């Protein structure tokens, strides 16, 4: 088994009387992506800022490649790459010049610097616009450059803070490929996102946080399995039929009705066979059904179950 590159133990940060991060623990191994998922204000950015030495934790500790973020920030900065908001790429420089700037600041030796910049441009397919000013880029191109710049010194740990927020679907797909490639090259990646699909597609492990606390963790599939059951959603033609339909559908606890949407929701114990049975009973009782669908649990359900329920 791989040794974890990023180790976080009991991390805590308080602003005034607001607990931003309340005792966070996780580990990230080389070559894997951890998705840090949570609503706005959950503590994602604070966590990233502590791990990248921009803020100090009030309690707990974190090490990156063996260096302590609180006590050895200078060494930590040599083994991390941070990207996300795209604010650091310079509009009036080209992609090549931006990458060269970061390479110089990481103090890459001069001969290696140029080779590494060329290699990244080639590897991540930036050649088409590498020598144009960033000011002329699309949002997606800009974001890709921003993320690639984090790789310049081959850091073993990479932090991406909401890298795809506000991107169109195609740019998002391109960026996902790049993020996956980073992990494939051996980096331990921490990715924060509000997009569940993104975590589902990219992350090997997911930590869902809300108000600074871990509310769920695991691989995407495990999280969905834990939440459990498939859901049958039925739209009836006449809302007056709903009470009777609910009665026919099964035990009260697993059935919910919504008269406004003429909708019946049934949590299924036994998946598709039970769905068929419910639909047959409705049909036998002569209740007209307009539409139905069988929904597998999504990460959205996991997320909503663990976050909104607590509010």
């Amino acid at each position, binding site marked *: 088994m791989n*040794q*974890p*590159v990023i*180790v976080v133990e009991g991390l805590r940060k308080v602003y005034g009387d607001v607990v931003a991060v309340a005792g966070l623990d996780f580990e990230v191994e080389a070559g894997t992506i951890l998705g840090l998922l949570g609503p706005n204000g959950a503590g994602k950015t604070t966590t990233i*800022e502590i791990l*990248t*030495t*921009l803020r100090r934790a009030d309690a707990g500790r974190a*090490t990156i*490649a*063996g*260096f302590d973020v609180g006590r050895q920030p*200078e*060494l930590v*900065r*040599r*083994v*991390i790459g*941070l*990207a996300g*908001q795209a*604010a*650091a790429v*310079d509009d*009036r*420089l080209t992609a090549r*010049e931006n990458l060269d*700037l*970061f390479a*110089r*600041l*990481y*103090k890459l*030796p001069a001969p290696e610097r140029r080779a590494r910049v060329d290699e990244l441009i080639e590897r991540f397919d930036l050649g088409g616009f590498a020598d144009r*000013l960033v000011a002329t880029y699309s949002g997606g191109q800009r974001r890709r450059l921003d993320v690639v710049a984090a790789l310049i010194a*081959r850091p*073993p740990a990479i932090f991406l803070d909401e890298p795809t927020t506000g991107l169109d679907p195609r740019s998002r797909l391109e960026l996902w490929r790049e993020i996956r490639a980073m992990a494939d090259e051996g980096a331990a990646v921490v990715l924060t996102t509000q997009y569940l699909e993104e975590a589902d597609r990219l992350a090997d492990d997911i930590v869902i946080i809300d108000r600074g606390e871990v509310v769920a963790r695991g691989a995407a599939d495990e999280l969905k399995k834990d939440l459990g059951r498939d859901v049958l959603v039925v739209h009836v033609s006449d809302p007056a039929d709903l009470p009777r339909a609910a009665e026919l559908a099964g035990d009260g606890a697993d059935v919910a009705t919504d008269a406004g949407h003429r909708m019946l929701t049934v949590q299924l114990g036994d998946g598709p066979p039970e769905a068929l049975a419910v639909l047959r009973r409705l049909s036998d009782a002569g209740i007209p059904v307009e539409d139905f669908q069988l929904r597998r649990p999504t990460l959205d359900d996991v997320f909503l179950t663990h976050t909104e329920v607590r509010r």
Partner: protein
Amino acid sequence: MSAVDLPFEPPSGVRGALIDVWTMARRDLIRTMRQPEYLSFSVVMGVFFLVLFELVFGGVIAAGAGVDYDQYLVPGVLVITAVTGALQTGNTLAVDLQYGADKRFRSLPMSRMAVLAGRTVADTIRNAVAVGLVAAVGYAFGFRFTSAGSAVAALALTVGIGYAFSWINAAIAAKVRSAELVGMLSMFWLFPLMFGSNLFTPTVAMPAWVKAFADNQPISVVATAVRALANGSDPGLSVVGSGAWIVGLLVVFVPLSVRLYRRA
């Protein structure tokens, strides 16, 4: 995980910091060359004051004060060019802080001070060019230095006070973190210094308390020194006073800027 072996040992300490300062300054200079309006702003400002005062007020002031107005006005205009050019430091830094560009820099293995120092160095190099251009325009109006040596000394003091003012602007930007606010605040601290001064007219006719301020504040002291150097007259304490102001402002505002910036 035990600590990894780092692939190479980068230059550290003062040498590493100097590399960072130059890297950041170089980046700003490339940007300036791509967008020369930043340079032209302070040149245009200087030429604007030169033409305005020379043509509009020059006759009256020269007659009233009994001075050769070209020799009087141009040194003041050079100082204005330098101190308004220094406003750029506050603007660009505030924009970076406002939009979080500096966060990335603070996560890099680089000197924290270099983000500020690189910018002030770049702004000062640009300022030297602007002051030189305005001096050339002054030459066309009839302004003269008595010797090349005095010209170099005078321009050095002018650029020096601009450098010190860059750090004042850096401190303000690090504190307020908004380009709009930095611009607005400059009206309140820089304009009184520009007009409560001997830049445009001798201070003899001012009320005593205004005169005391106008004679001794940094912009006037430097302008007086530049005038004396240009005319080959006795500078009195003005050259030493200029050096003292420049050093004094740097001693206060460099550490203050760095502290305010780190607090981010």
